[in-house]
C-alpha cells in the first residue's frame, strides 16, 4: 500500500533535489505529459479489448472443438515463441501502405503489436481454464440442460475469470513495455504521439524537467491501474477458482500474486519451446539410423547428436532459402538491391553472433543479480514482506520508458555495448527473478529440514539441495528471460534520440532498424527479421528444450 505513494513521491523528490530541476518546472510539463499518456492508454485499452474478445473466442473454440484444437494450439505455440517486436517495422510498413489518413497506419500497427503481445497468454488462460474445468462441473451443467447464453453466463465465462484476471495483469505489464518501445521506435519517423515518444523528445532536448514529468505521469497511471483495477479484480477473482480447496483455506488473498502469474507465463513459453521445428527432427533421426547403422540402433548419445545436427541443418537451410526468396522477390518487384544493403545482408551472420553474445552476457549478469536476490527475499520474512511489493511495482514499470535517458546519461560511462546490454537486462531480469523466487519458495520444507538434520550447510547445501530444487524454475525463468531479451533487441541495439545521441551497435536488432530507416532497406529488414526468428528457434530447440526435458525428468519434486 505504502509503495503506491512512495514510488511516485520518490521520483519527484529525487528530481527536485537534483540540480537544474524545480517542482514548478516539472509541474508545467504535466499537462502535455498527461495528454500523451492518455494516447498511450487508449492504445492499450484498444489492444486489450481486442485481446479479450479474441481470447474468449479463440480459447473457447480451441478448448471445445477437438479438430480446431489440433490446429489452433500449435499455431499459437509457434506465434508466441517468436520475438513479436521484431515484426513491428514490417507491420508498420504494411499498415502504412493502407489507404486512409496518415496517422492510421502507425496507430493500427502499434495496437496490433500490443494485441499480439497481450493476447496469446490470455488465450492460453481461457483455453486452459476451460480444459481443466472438472468433469463433474461440466456434467452438472449438462444434466440440467444448460445451453447457449445461460451456459456462457453461468458456467463458461465464470470458469475463465480467475485465470483471465491474472493473465490480464501480465498482459498489461508486457503491453506497456512493448507500447513504449514501439512509440520510441517510431519517434522522428511516422509519428505516434504517446508517452514513449514524449519521453524520447524530452531526452532529445535534454530537458530533465520534461522527462521527469513524463515518468511521473506514467508511474501514476500504472500504479493507479494496479490499485484501482487489478488488485480489486484479483481479490474478486478468487471466488472463481475451482480447485477443491477445503473450507477455510479458500479466502487467501495474497498481495503477491505475481509469483503465480510469472510461473504461468513461464509455462506457456516452455510449451512453445516443446513444439515447432523439433518435430521435424524425429523422422531424420530414424532416416539416419537406417542409412548409417543398418543393423543396430544408434546409441542415445548418437541419437542426440544426430537430432542436434539435423535440427541445426534444417534451420540453416530453411533460413538460407527464406533469405534467398526475400532477395529474389525484391529483385523482381523493386529492382536490384542497393550495394550498401547487399553488403549489410552479408553481415547478417556476424550480427547474429553479436546479438546472441549480447543477450547471453545480459543473461549472465541478470542471473548474478536475480539468484541471490531471490534467495534472500524468499528466505527472509522481512524482505518478503517489504522488499517484494517494492520489486513487484518496479517490475510492472516499463523499463523502456527510461531508454532515451539511459542513452543520454550512460553511454559516456558504459560505452555503446555496455548500454545495449544494460537495456537488454531490463527486459530479462524480472522473468528470471520471479521464476527463481517461486522456485526457492516452493522448495519443500521437509527437504530443507532433512538437509539440516544431516548437517548439510553452506556450499554443499547449495549444490545438493537448493540448486537442484530450483533448477526447473531456473530453466523456465531462463527461457522467458531469453524471450524478453530477443524482444528488447530492436531498441537496445539501435536507438536514435537525436543526431548527436544515437546508439548503434552491430546486431540483428540494429539491422532491422537500419533496414526500416534506410531507403530501399526493406530486404535487409526482412532478412534480419528472418535471421532473428531462426536464431530464436535454434536456441530454443538446441539449448532450452533439452534442458527443460532434463529438468522435468530429473529435478521435478512431486
Amino acid at each position, binding site marked *: 500500500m505504502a509503495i503506491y505513494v512512495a514510488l511516485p513521491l520518490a521520483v519527484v523528490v529525487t528530481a527536485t533535489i537534483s540540480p537544474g530541476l524545480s517542482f514548478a518546472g516539472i509541474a508545467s510539463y504535466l499537462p502535455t505529459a498527461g495528454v500523451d499518456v492518455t494516447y498511450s492508454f487508449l492504445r492499450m485499452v484498444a489492444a486489450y479489448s481486442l485481446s479479450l474478445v479474441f481470447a474468449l473466442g479463440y480459447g473457447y473454440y480451441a478448448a471445445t472443438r477437438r479438430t480446431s484444437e489440433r490446429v489452433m494450439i500449435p499455431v499459437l505455440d509457434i506465434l508466441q515463441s517468436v520475438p513479436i517486436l521484431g515484426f513491428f517495422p514490417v507491420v508498420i510498413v504494411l499498415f502504412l501502405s493502407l489507404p486512409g489518413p496518415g496517422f492510421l497506419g502507425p496507430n493500427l500497427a502499434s495496437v496490433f503489436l500490443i494485441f499480439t503481445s497481450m493476447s496469446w497468454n490470455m488465450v492460453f488462460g481461457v483455453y486452459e481454464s476451460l480444459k481443466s474445468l472438472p468433469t463433474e*462441473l461440466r*456434467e452438472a451443467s449438462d444434466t440440467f*440442460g*444448460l445451453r447457449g447464453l445461460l451456459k456462457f453466463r*453461468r458456467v463458461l465465462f465464470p470458469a475463465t475469470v480467475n485465470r483471465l484476471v491474472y493473465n490480464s495483469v501480465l498482459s498489461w505489464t508486457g503491453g506497456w513495455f512493448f507500447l513504449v518501445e514501439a512509440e520510441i521506435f517510431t519517434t522522428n519517423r511516422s509519428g505516434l504521439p504517446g508517452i514513449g515518444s514524449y519521453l524520447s523528445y524530452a531526452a532529445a532536448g535534454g530537458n530533465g524537467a520534461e522527462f521527469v514529468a513524463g515518468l511521473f505521469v506514467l508511474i501514476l497511471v500504472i500504479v493507479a491501474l494496479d490499485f484501482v483495477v487489478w488488485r480489486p479484480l484479483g481479490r474478486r477473482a478468487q*471466488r*472463481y*477458482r475451482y480447485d477443491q480447496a477445503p*473450507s477455510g483455506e479458500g*479466502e487467501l488473498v495474497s498481495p503477491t500474486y505475481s509469483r503465480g502469474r510469472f510461473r504461468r507465463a513461464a509455462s506457456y513459453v516452455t510449451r512453445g519451446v516443446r513444439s515447432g521445428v523439433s518435430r521435424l527432427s524425429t523422422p531424420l533421426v530414424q532416416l539416419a539410423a537406417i542409412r548409417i547403422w543398418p543393423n543396430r540402433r544408434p546409441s542415445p548419445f548418437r541419437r542426440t547428436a544426430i537430432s542436434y545436427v539435423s535440427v541445426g541443418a534444417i534451420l540453416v537451410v530453411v533460413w538460407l532459402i527464406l533469405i534467398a526468396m526475400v532477395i529474389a522477390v525484391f529483385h523482381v518487384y523493386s529492382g536490384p538491391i542497393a550495394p550498401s544493403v547487399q553488403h549489410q545482408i552479408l553481415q547478417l551472420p556476424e550480427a547474429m553472433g553479436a546479438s546472441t553474445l549480447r543477450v547471453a552476457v545480459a543473461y549472465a549478469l541478470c542471473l548474478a543479480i536475480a539468484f541471490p536476490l531471490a534467495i534472500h527475499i524468499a528466505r527472509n520474512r522481512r524482505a518478503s514482506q517489504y522488499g517484494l511489493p517494492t520489486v513487484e511495482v518496479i517490475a510492472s514499470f516499463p523499463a523502456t520508458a527510461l531508454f532515451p535517458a539511459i542513452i543520454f546519461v550512460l553511454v559516456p560511462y558504459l560505452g555503446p555495448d555496455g548500454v545495449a546490454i544494460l537495456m537488454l537486462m531490463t527486459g530479462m531480469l524480472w522473468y528470471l527473478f520471479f521464476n527463481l523466487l517461486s522456485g526457492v519458495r516452493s522448495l519443500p520444507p521437509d527437504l530443507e529440514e532433512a538437509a539440516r538434520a544431516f548437517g548439510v550447510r553452506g556450499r554443499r547445501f547449495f549444490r545438493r539441495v537448493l540448486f537442484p530444487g530450483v533448477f526447473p524454475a531456473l530453466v523456465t525463468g531462463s527461457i522467458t528471460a531469453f524471450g524478453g531479451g530477443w524482444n528488447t533487441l530492436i531498441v537496445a541495439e539501435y536507438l536514435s534520440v537525436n543526431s548527436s545521441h544515437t546508439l548503434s551497435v552491430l546486431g540483428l536488432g540494429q539491422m532491422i532498424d537500419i533496414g526500416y530507416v534506410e531507403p530501399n532497406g526493406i530486404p535487409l529488414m526482412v532478412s534480419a527479421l528472418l535471421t532473428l526468428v531462426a536464431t530464436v528457434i535454434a536456441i530454443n530447440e538446441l539449448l532450452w528444450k533439452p534442458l527443460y526435458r532434463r529438468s522435468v525428468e530429473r529435478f521435478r519434486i512431486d
Partner: protein
Amino acid sequence: MPLIQVEHVDKSFATGHGSISIMKDVSFIVKDADFLAIVGPSGCGKSTLLRLIQGLDRPTGGRIVFHDKGVDTVCGHMAMVFQNFALFPWLTVAQNVAFGLEALGWGKERIAAQVERYISVTGLDGFQEAYPRELSGGMRQRVGLARALSVEPEVLLMDEPFSALDALTAESLREEILQLWRDPALPPDAVLLVTHNIEEAIQLADRIVVLSRRPGRVLAEVTVDLPRPRDRKSTAFYDLTDKVFSLITQPGPVSEGPGTPEGAPAV
C-alpha cells in the same frame, strides 16, 4: 410397469490400442418407488452406468428405456448428485440450487420460492448467500442434493454421494435421504444409488444390483427385505453383507481379468 429398463447395455471406450470394454450385457429394471443400489468393485462401470441412464453418454450396445421411451439425450426427469458435489464455486448456495431451474426457464419469483423450499428441506436455512468454499463437506453435499431435488425429478441419481464425506456426516445424511425418499410430498419417486460400500447399500436400498469387476456384468440382484430402520449389528444384516461381499470377490467364470479386486481378501 417399470420406470427405467436397462436392456443388454454394453459400453466400451476407444483408446490408443483398440477399445476397452467397461460393461457387458447389463440388464435390470427400476420400478416406481424403488430404492435401488448398484454396487461393485472400482472400475466396474457403476458411475458410467448412471451417466448412461441419465443420457450424459450413450451405450455402445443395448438400450435404456425411461417410461416407454428410449433415452437418447439428457433426461430432464432425472437429477444427479455427484461424488465431489460439483458445485459452482462462483455461485452462492441459493444460485447453485437455482441452477437447474434457470435452465428450465422458470420465472424469477417461482425460482426463488422453489429454492427457498428445498433449502429448508435440506437444512440449509441461513446459508443462502454463502459460497460453497465456505461450507463443510456435508453442507456442500446438501447443496448438491437441494439442487437435484429442486427440479423435482422422478428419479434421483446418486453417484457415490457419501464417499467424499467423513463417516459421521455420511451417516446422518444417509438417514435424511431415506426420510426424503419416504416422504410422499417430496420428489423423487425412485432413487438410484451407486456405491462401493456394501453396508451402505444394504442400509438404504430395497434391491441391490451387484456388478462384477471390469467388464461389469450383473452378478446378481439381491433383495433386501430387512425392516427399516435397519440394524447394522443384526445377524440378518451381517449375513446379507457377507453374501454380497462374497458375490463380488468370488473367483469364477465372471472374472476374466487377472488379479483380484483391490483390497478384497479371498473368501
